[in-house]
């Protein structure tokens, strides 16, 4: 692929392998910019990027904000906790209002699945999904894939194990779509209460055994387990959860020499990953943050430059 023409980045489910590769290849070039004395390029001069976050987020928002700034775009942050409907305004009203500022890109996070898709059909601007409900979080998966490719030199033929709260994870879903397009086998591992009933329709293998998930895995993605899942009765106690589903010194031995342990952050140490592995794991997690910036720069660049048409989804 030599050029990019997709207008919106809504999810990895609808993207081709070639498009994903184009983003990862570009991200490689963008990663270099952050090492320069002047960490800024003029590519998006005069473009306006709006971070439209209807859900609390600091990491993703910061990453997008910095990415846009390093490309010389003007960035506006709009955050709204809770439903905008409560204020008597629909998200469409909010979007229309901001669009009056001649926005080029909306980066949208919303607790409703497909909300970015909905808004993308109603705006002239490009839309980047920064996490929609339990659907997708495409840039997180892209940065995971970028990290894996950089570390392991390939994305093909890998065993990728995603462990934890699959039910409530948009990161898991995006990673499943993404890795499976490169002929890697994704496994998900969680207590049955945290795996959706019809999940086997996705290109994924399901196991309740952490041992089976970890054995021979090239990549392990440990997902954050929210404290409230316990009170919602998805599992009886955190103690029991971590006994069966946390990565510890013992079960880490099932991994290969080169295996990567990743986490979208922030980690609940001793819940998802035993704190004795902190030293080993943390470097890569920080590198993921750095790679996230490069991936988001690449996405912002690809979506905002040139004439776009919508690629059938």
């Amino acid at each position, binding site marked *: *692929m*030599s*050029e*990019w*023409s997709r207008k919106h980045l809504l999810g990895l489910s609808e993207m081709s392998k070639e498009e994903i590769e*184009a983003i990862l*290849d*570009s991200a*490689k*070039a*963008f990663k*270099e*910019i952050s090492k*320069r*004395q*002047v960490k*800024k*390029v*003029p*590519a998006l001069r*005069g473009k306006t990027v709006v971070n439209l976050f209807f859900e609390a987020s600091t990491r993703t928002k910061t990453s997008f904000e910095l990415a846009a700034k390093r*490309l010389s775009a003007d960035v506006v942050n709009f955050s709204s906790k809770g439903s905008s409907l409560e204020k008597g305004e629909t998200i469409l009203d909010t979007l229309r209002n901001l669009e009056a500022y001649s926005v080029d890109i909306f980066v949208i996070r919303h607790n409703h699945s497909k909300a970015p898709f909905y808004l993308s059909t109603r705006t002239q601007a490009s839309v980047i999904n920064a996490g929609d409900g339990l659907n997708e979080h495409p840039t997180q998966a892209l940065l995971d894939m970028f990290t894996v490719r950089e570390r392991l030199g390939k994305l093909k033929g890998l065993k990728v194990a995603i462990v934890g709260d699959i039910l409530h994870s948009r990161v898991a879903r995006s990673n499943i779509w993404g890795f499976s397009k490169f002929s890697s086998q994704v496994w998900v591992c969680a207590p049955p209460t945290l795996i959706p009933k019809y999940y086997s329709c996705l290109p994924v293998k399901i196991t309740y055994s952490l041992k089976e998930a970890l054995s021979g895995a090239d990549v392990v993605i440990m997902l954050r387990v929210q404290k409230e899942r316990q009170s919602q009765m998805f599992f009886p106690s955190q103690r029991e959860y971590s006994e069966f589903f946390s990565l510890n010194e013992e079960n880490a031995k099932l991994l290969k020499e080169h295996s990567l342990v990743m986490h979208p952050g922030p980690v609940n140490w001793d819940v998802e990953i035993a704190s004795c592995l902190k030293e080993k794991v943390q470097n890569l997690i920080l590198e993921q943050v750095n790679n996230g910036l490069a991936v988001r720069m*690449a996405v912002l*660049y*690809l*979506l*905002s*430059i*040139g*004439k*776009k048409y919508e690629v059938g989804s």
Partner: protein
Amino acid sequence: MEYKEKSKIIDSQEICRALKRLAHQILEKNPNPANLALIGIQRRGVFLAKRIQDIISHIKHVDVPLGVIDITLYRDDLTAVGPAPLVRQTQIEFDISTKVVVLVDDVLYTGRTIRCALDEIMDFGRPKRIELAVLIDRGHRELPIRADFVGKNIPTASSEVVEVKVQELDGKDEVVILEKNNE
């Protein structure tokens, strides 16, 4: 738009000779190669710079540091282009602030690419001096830019396209002139 090949103007032997000449001229102007650095412009300038680096190393037995830049993000026509051009690697792994940087590109035409490269290099630091080496100067400048070292001057019409091919990318070394196909 379609183009057809009009004439081959330089063959591989001549390219080889031109690069040698460029290397000698660079060394003539910069007798102390310790201060020198080469930066090739993506894509074909990169391979020409590499070859100049090899020639200098052969003559002087020193390895002149070599960098690579992609100027896409500095283009002045990014808002006007069609689909987004893909960005290739930029890699300058030496401190340029003590160096005389010789920029290397295949064809010097409007000068806009060089303007981008100059801006981009400045974001890496403040080099002592920047010089420009090109294989072909085809004229039609749109900015006040000139090359310090020129392999060959070729007068062209603006309807023509000068295409440099290199072994590493195109399987052969040659320079051809293409013309818009009006049929």
